[in-house]
């Protein structure tokens, strides 16, 4: 056994057993962050705070939610919204945070793409981030089933139908996933379990991996500068705080994180109290009815772009391209053949690629919600094809890129 001495303080007692000082250094005070970064680098903390809001509000909702097809809608809309003190508040926070978290994820993702933060040793940050995106998507979808409203039911119907694989007609697989011929009690129970246990667990584990993947390569900076963290941190510790190119994570960068979080929360709570309909679809305030298909079925806004890649084509091609869209982002670090880990605006053609990709995904998002008629379906088709072409073109564009 290790040698223990009589502790001189609580901190010392803990130090001998948990090495708290060392942990604090590794995780906070000597976790070095470059100084040349902007507020987009605070999106990670914004996501942590939003996830915390989701967990806390979710715990309160879980106390009253009843996961049965007969009671679910009532427990949400009557018990939680009317009877439980502040139940409405927790529900609005949960619903709005579930939507806003995707806005921040997309900002975080496109920040990473713009600044090339998936390159040179940072591949695992990117891959774990994309796995988090997948886990959050599954979490959002399973959560959307729980109020058991019209959109829950019909979105559940449509999305599980995708697993039939078009012409493969794997209807058995669809039934196996649903546990029934249509979404019913078995389906609701399963998605409830996924939403409140397995997926949050997976998300927490992936957040751990995401942070761990970041620790050794350090975060990127906005100038694509190669920083010698050892030399710069030594300079900082020797007292030249202003001259060093790096700063501590805590409290230096964390103070800025908190400033951004403060501004974000003003925006967030404005949505929670005054502008929540975008996150809580009116159609889902009608109880699920298997005999009444809603006039328009569409997913939540953050799934619309991939939904629109599925929609313009025949079912088989649509499914293949949909699958392509789901996995292609994960491969970005290998599809980008350029060695330049610098902002997109200094990378020639890639800059165009980036802004076209971003704009095109917004167009896909819009078309995914609109009814597939007339000019909307034509725009959707062109955008979906452009999306695929852009990804196929990426290795060729980036391979020709000159070293900057």
């Amino acid at each position, binding site marked *: 056994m290790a040698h223990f001495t009589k502790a001189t303080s609580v901190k010392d007692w803990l130090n001998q057993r948990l090495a708290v000082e060392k942990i604090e250094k590794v995780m906070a005070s000597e976790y070095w962050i470059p100084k040349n970064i902007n507020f987009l680098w605070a999106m990670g903390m914004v996501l942590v705070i939003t996830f915390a809001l989701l967990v806390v509000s979710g715990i309160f909702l879980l106390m009253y939610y009843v996961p049965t097809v007969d009671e679910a809608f009532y427990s949400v809309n009557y018990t939680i919204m009317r009877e439980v003190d502040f139940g409405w508040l927790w529900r609005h926070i949960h619903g709005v945070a579930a939507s806003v978290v995707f806005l921040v994820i997309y900002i975080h993702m496109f920040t990473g793409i713009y600044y090339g933060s998936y390159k040179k040793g940072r591949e695992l940050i990117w891959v774990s981030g994309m796995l988090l995106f997948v886990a959050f998507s599954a979490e959002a979808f399973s959560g959307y089933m729980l109020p058991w409203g019209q959109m829950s039911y019909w979105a559940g119907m449509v999305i599980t139908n995708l697993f039939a694989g078009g012409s493969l007609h794997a209807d058995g697989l669809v039934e196996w996933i649903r546990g029934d011929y249509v979404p019913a009690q078995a389906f609701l129970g399963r998605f409830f379990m996924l939403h409140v246990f397995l997926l949050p667990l997976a998300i927490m584990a992936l957040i751990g991996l995401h942070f761990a993947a970041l620790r050794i390569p350090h975060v990127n900076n906005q100038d694509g500068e190669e920083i010698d963290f050892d030399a710069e941190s030594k300079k900082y510790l020797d007292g030249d705080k202003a001259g060093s190119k790096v700063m501590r994570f805590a*409290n230096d960068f964390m103070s*800025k994180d908190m*400033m951004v979080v*403060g501004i974000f929360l003003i925006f967030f709570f404005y949505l*929670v*109290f005054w502008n929540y309909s*975008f996150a809580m679809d009116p159609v889902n*305030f009608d109880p699920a009815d298997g005999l009444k298909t809603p006039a*328009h079925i569409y997913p939540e806004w953050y799934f619309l772009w991939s939904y629109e890649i599925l929609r313009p084509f025949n079912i088989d091609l649509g499914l293949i391209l949909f699958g392509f869209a789901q996995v292609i982002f994960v491969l970005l670090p290998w599809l980008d053949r350029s060695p330049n880990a610098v902002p997109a605006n200094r990378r020639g053609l890639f800059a165009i690629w980036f802004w076209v990709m971003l704009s095109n995904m917004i167009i896909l*998002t819009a078309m995914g919600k609109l009814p597939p008629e007339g000019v909307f379906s034509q725009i959707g088709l062109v955008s979906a094809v452009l999306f695929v072409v852009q990804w196929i073109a990426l290795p060729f564009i980036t391979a020709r890129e000159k070293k900057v």
Partner: protein
Amino acid sequence: MKNKEPIILAVVVFFSLATYYLVEPFAHHVLHKKVIEAKNEGFAYNDLPAITKTGNAASGKDLVVNGGCTGCHSIEVAGMPAPMDAVTAAGAYGVNPPDLSNAGAIYDAKFLADLIKNPAHALKVEHKFDAAKGEMHPMVSYYGMGGDIDQEVADMVAYMQSIAVKPEDVTPAMAYEDACGRCHSVEYEKWTQIGEKPKFKHEKDSLAFDIKVIEYQESLIKYMGKLPPDLSMYIRSRGDDFLSKLIENPQNILEGTAMPRVGVTADAAEKIIEHMKDAGDTKRHEREEIGRNVMIYIIIFAIFAFLWKKQVWRDLH
């Protein structure tokens, strides 16, 4: 180094707002074009003829009694009870005919006048009740007692207005129950088509009440084609604009629907919607109040966070 943050913020805000605009206001406008662009006359009922005669409430009373109205309708306030209970009445007519005590305060006068003369026309259900094909509306048209029919109708309307409470004393619940409540339940307010479900001491009595509701609903389903939906959450699922336009003229919003135009005044329509908010958005006042307090708290938090950042970063530059 130049501070790029304002321009970066502008870019982020621009793309976020563009996405929001496209998937919310714009898509909403495309998806719900019909409702958003539906013409609203502000419950003026311009398609109905104006009442040209000045009504006399006293002769109106005689006409109402002798004209046969009270054969089906109760007028509780004048001491005239319903000839049948709600379940039996629904069995006979499809839906329980309303009590007329407050009709004068809740419904538009022009509408009442037209309703008396030609129910299917005023209610806009002529697609369902075509007299030429022998499909008669359960409410019999009034053909007059021999005098000037327009004068007689004006008298009856004047009588109904004279016995009703003042329009400003109509409560949201009264307006809802009178105009909507005989077809639409509101589970969250314990409202059934035959009235509010009382608290029963014995399970047996509670079940007996439920059976009555089911019997009533069976007649209603035969009459309307399907059970009219429960409206507990309609304020959240449909919203004010849809509901107001639907109440004013159901055919404008749901073409061919069996739902009649109920002919409420603009004031009563507002109260109906208020009642639906009381059922499906009960915490709206609390939401405003707590929202304000949370905002104050968060703004103070943001100010402190900003000051902390300034203090920490003073040494870093």
